[in-house]
């Protein structure tokens, strides 16, 4: 079959270039597989594969009707799947689908520009889902590809892939100082980015929830995700003092402890008298989507913008959706609330009207036997110590309304939430004010770098009782039942350590362990030096620079940016003027060259006007008449003698009318 010569179409891309573009889109979209619903990834991948196969087989662009139907189907599917087409996940899903569809009709320069610009946007959207170091490196590679494609697109034959890649790397390197300046100075808004709805697709790490029911902390302990990393200013406190305070739970209801509504209204934050030197810690907290700012027990201060709860822990004004770094001071020896306010006492003794009769009876027995609260506490601890309790990640189920009775007298197996919950219940039943504190216990020293890691698997719950003269005192019933939990960590304590996550330990420290630790050190540096730089730190930096207030900061920065841009523009304009050809004939010819370069026909170094015209004519026959005439005229005007100004004007007029892209479209064939 005789193949027809393809008609010369101006400013089109080659098949290889379109295949490369498809690969770039696939590369930069790849991480979204983990972020988007499966069907979106599948549809996008199918569209990309279809496009690649179509190009390989040399099939033409699918008809407009097919493309329109596919577009409508894509929008419809996103609307049905998400109920919306904007917002973080839905918007990105739509973006990926439309980008893949756009590729199927991408032939001309204009389309490629659109696709590459969208690619840049996709790169940014990756950061909405993950800001890890690995992702950052991946996206640098993606940016490099996209910029290389831009370079190739604009330089055509003058920048073959290899040269374009080198130029792209050079441009990215040049951009580093600008990126660094913007990183430090670009105003950071607290709260979710651009008012996008918070991540709600279940990909977030779960942290301490503010409620505690049987099994909830055991579930958390199965993850070795890093909850926070901490540096001690000075020596680390002894293992028995490594309690990290999180939300304090006051209310007990149907087997569940929770922070309780209105606690903050009825009880004022506690008075803390520190004894001895405090401990200063530098904490980088992973996003938890909860406002808790974890700190070593008992926290004295954290960054000023935060509020202290009635339980003595600190909370941020917003849920922590981005990594945050703060300095916290804590006291290891302290007295909290030497006097207990009546409202607090009421809350710390409150119990549901019914449920758990055997536990109540046991508590009453202790209370009748001993009027001293300290003795009651000891009785209870003895009960846990001698009761042959099993400390396990997989406790048997307990009933909802009699969970404490079931645990204390039937199953006798539980995780720290069972012990802390039951102990607090017993104390309240015996008339001793008590509350549950959730947080973390322990810390793992990083093998590289001077910091400690606290993981979800270190999640813990304990009790505090209020004793006259001593205030709130920490009592850890888990330590009584399973002493190894505090001394040797969770792995030595639980009976089923095989269910613990890998990094929680309990095995030889093999190469994999050390590799994970090495990566942790890199990741810690990344988090500490890059991600934790948020609005709070930025405002402190601005304050140090004498810029007070967010509004002032924005005004100053806007002024700086506008001023810099204006200066750069002026400088460029001045330089362009300096380089600008004095001769309007030469300027007209340069314009012709630029227009031809835009359709991939840049003049080569050392190519004469006439030789250039010959090559253009050979590649784009539709231009032959015009470009031959223009080049001959230009050569004459430039190199021959006695030129009349009419001839110069005629050339400039003709040059202005030279539009290679339009010519190719209207006169093709």
């Amino acid at each position: 079959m005789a193949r027809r010569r393809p008609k010369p179409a101006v400013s089109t891309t080659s098949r290889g270039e379109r295949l490369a573009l498809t690969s770039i889109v696939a590369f930069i979209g790849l991480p979204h597989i983990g972020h988007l619903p499966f069907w979106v990834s599948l549809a996008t991948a199918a569209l990309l594969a279809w496009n690649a196969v179509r190009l390989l087989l040399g099939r033409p662009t699918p008809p407009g009707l097919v493309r329109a139907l596919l577009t409508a189907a894509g929008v419809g599917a996103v609307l049905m799947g998400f109920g919306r087409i904007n917002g973080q996940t839905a918007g990105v899903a739509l973006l990926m689908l439309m980008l893949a569809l756009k590729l199927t009709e991408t032939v001309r320069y204009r389309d490629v520009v659109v696709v590459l610009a969208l690619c840049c946007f996709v790169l940014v959207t990756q950061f909405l889902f993950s800001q890890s170091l690995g992702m950052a490196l991946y996206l640098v590679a993606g940016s490099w590809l996209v910029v290389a494609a831009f370079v190739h697109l604009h330089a055509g034959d003058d920048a073959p892939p290899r040269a374009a890649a080198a130029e792209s790397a050079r441009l990215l390197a040049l951009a580093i100082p600008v990126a660094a300046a913007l990183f430090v100075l670009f105003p950071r808004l607290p709260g979710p980015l651009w008012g996008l709805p918070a991540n709600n697709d279940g990909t977030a790490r779960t942290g301490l929830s503010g409620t505690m029911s049987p099994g909830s902390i055991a579930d958390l302990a199965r993850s070795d995700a890093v909850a926070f990393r901490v540096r001690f200013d000075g020596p680390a406190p002894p293992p028995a003092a490594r309690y990290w305070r999180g939300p304090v739970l006051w209310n007990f209801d149907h087997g569940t402890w929770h922070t309780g509504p209105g606690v903050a209204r009825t009880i004022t934050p506690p008075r803390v008298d520190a004894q001895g030197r405090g401990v200063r810690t530098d904490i980088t907290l992973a996003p938890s989507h909860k406002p808790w700012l974890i700190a070593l027990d008992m926290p004295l201060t954290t960054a000023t913008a935060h509020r202290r709860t009635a339980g003595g822990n600190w909370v941020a004004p917003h849920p922590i959706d981005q990594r945050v770094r703060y300095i916290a001071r804590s006291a290891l020896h302290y007295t909290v609330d030497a006097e207990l306010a009546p409202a607090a006492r009421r809350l710390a003794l409150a119990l549901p009207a019914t449920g758990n009769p055997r536990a109540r009876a046991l508590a009453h027995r202790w209370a009748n036997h001993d009027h001293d609260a300290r003795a009651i506490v000891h009785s209870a601890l003895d009960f846990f110590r001698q009761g042959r309790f099993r400390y396990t990640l997989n406790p048997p189920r307990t009933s909802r309304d009699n969970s404490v009775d079931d645990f204390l007298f039937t199953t006798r197996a539980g995780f720290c939430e069972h012990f802390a919950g039951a102990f607090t219940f017993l104390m309240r039943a015996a008339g001793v004010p008590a509350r549950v504190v959730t947080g973390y216990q322990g810390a793992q020293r990083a093998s590289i770098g001077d910091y400690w890691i606290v993981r979800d698997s270190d999640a813990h719950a304990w009790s505090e009782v209020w004793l006259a003269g001593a205030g709130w005192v920490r009592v850890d019933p888990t330590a009584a039942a399973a002493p190894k939990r505090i001394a040797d960590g969770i792995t030595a304590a639980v009976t089923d350590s095989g269910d613990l996550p890998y990094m929680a330990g309990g095995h030889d420290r093999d190469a994999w362990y050390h590799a994970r630790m090495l990566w942790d050190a890199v990741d810690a540096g990344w988090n500490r030096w890059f991600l934790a730089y948020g609005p709070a730190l930025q405002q402190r930096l601005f304050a140090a620079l004498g810029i007070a207030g967010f509004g002032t900061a924005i005004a100053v920065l806007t002024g700086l940016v506008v001023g810099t841009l204006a200066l750069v523009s002026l400088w460029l304009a001045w330089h362009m003027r300096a380089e600008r050809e004095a001769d309007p004939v030469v300027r007209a010819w340069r314009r012709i060259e630029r227009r031809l370069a835009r359709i991939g026909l840049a003049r080569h170094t050392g190519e004469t006007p006439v030789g250039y015209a010959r090559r253009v004519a050979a590649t784009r026959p539709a231009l032959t008449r015009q470009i031959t005439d223009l080049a001959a005229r230009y050569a004459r005007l430039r190199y021959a003698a006695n030129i009349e100004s009419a001839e110069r004007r005629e050339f400039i007029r003709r040059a202005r009318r030279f539009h290679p892209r339009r010519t190719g479209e209207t006169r093709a064939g």
Partner: protein
Amino acid sequence: MSPQPPPQNAAPDRAAIAGALDRARQAIGQRLYDKDHVVRLALACLLADGHLLIEDIPGVGKTTLAHGLADTLGLAFSRIQFVSDLLPSDILGVSVFDRNEAEFVFRPGPIFAELVLADEINRASPRTQSALLEAMAERQVTIEGVTHVLEAPFNVLATQNPADQNGTFALPDSQLDRFLMRIHLGYPTRMAERRLLAGGDTRAEAHNDRLSPVAGPNELIAWQQAAAATLVRDPLLDYLQALIAYSRRTGIFERGLSPRGGLALRRAAQAWALIDGRDHVLPEDVQAVLPAVVDHRLIRRERDTDQPSTHLLHSVDVG
């Protein structure tokens, strides 16, 4: 720099000159098949009043080209076969005592001609070579204190056999600069070879049947003046200067182009434009003569397959 001053007399009829040169090229083409570009270069070299070095193995038509040029331009031709015991006086001439006149009279050597073919100059001793090269440069010969001018037109066609190195003295690089151009004839094309094999010996034809001249020495002088008067405007001077500057700056050559090399390039380009009948030089003219003018003047520091001219062509932009 301002353009060349226009010639004082009426401007030469460039179309007529181009026509005559075209006939000469065609006539030589009857003997030397499919070598029009080389023939044109050789003509340009003579029009630029320069000396030509032909570097090639024997038997590819060097002599044919020399004869063709001499015949068609109507020049007095002489040929010197260089051998190892050739003496300077064998080229330049000697003073002998004339008994009748009772004084020394000068017997001019073969160099006193309008077109001199110095065949296989690398076979002569350096001393003899330099006698020739001096005469070429000075356009005069001094023997026993008496200076004899070599009247214009005076151009030398030297040949050198690069393959034959035994007992020869290849011209030093510094001497190569004295030749305006160096060209290679190369093997004939397939078609030309066939024509050659079918048609018989060209040398016999050349001897028996001289080409009819299209001009004479006086015309050649006029044409040389016309070539020198070809307009070189500023943009082209910019290009020439850029080429020269680049050859010195780039660092890939042992030495850059000398001022003489730069002048050679301009003159050759002017002659090339004249062959086209044009009154001004285009960058194309420079590029056409560039290999013949610069390749023997520039030596690459490191071996490379690219000729120096190719490198210049692709590195220096046309202004």
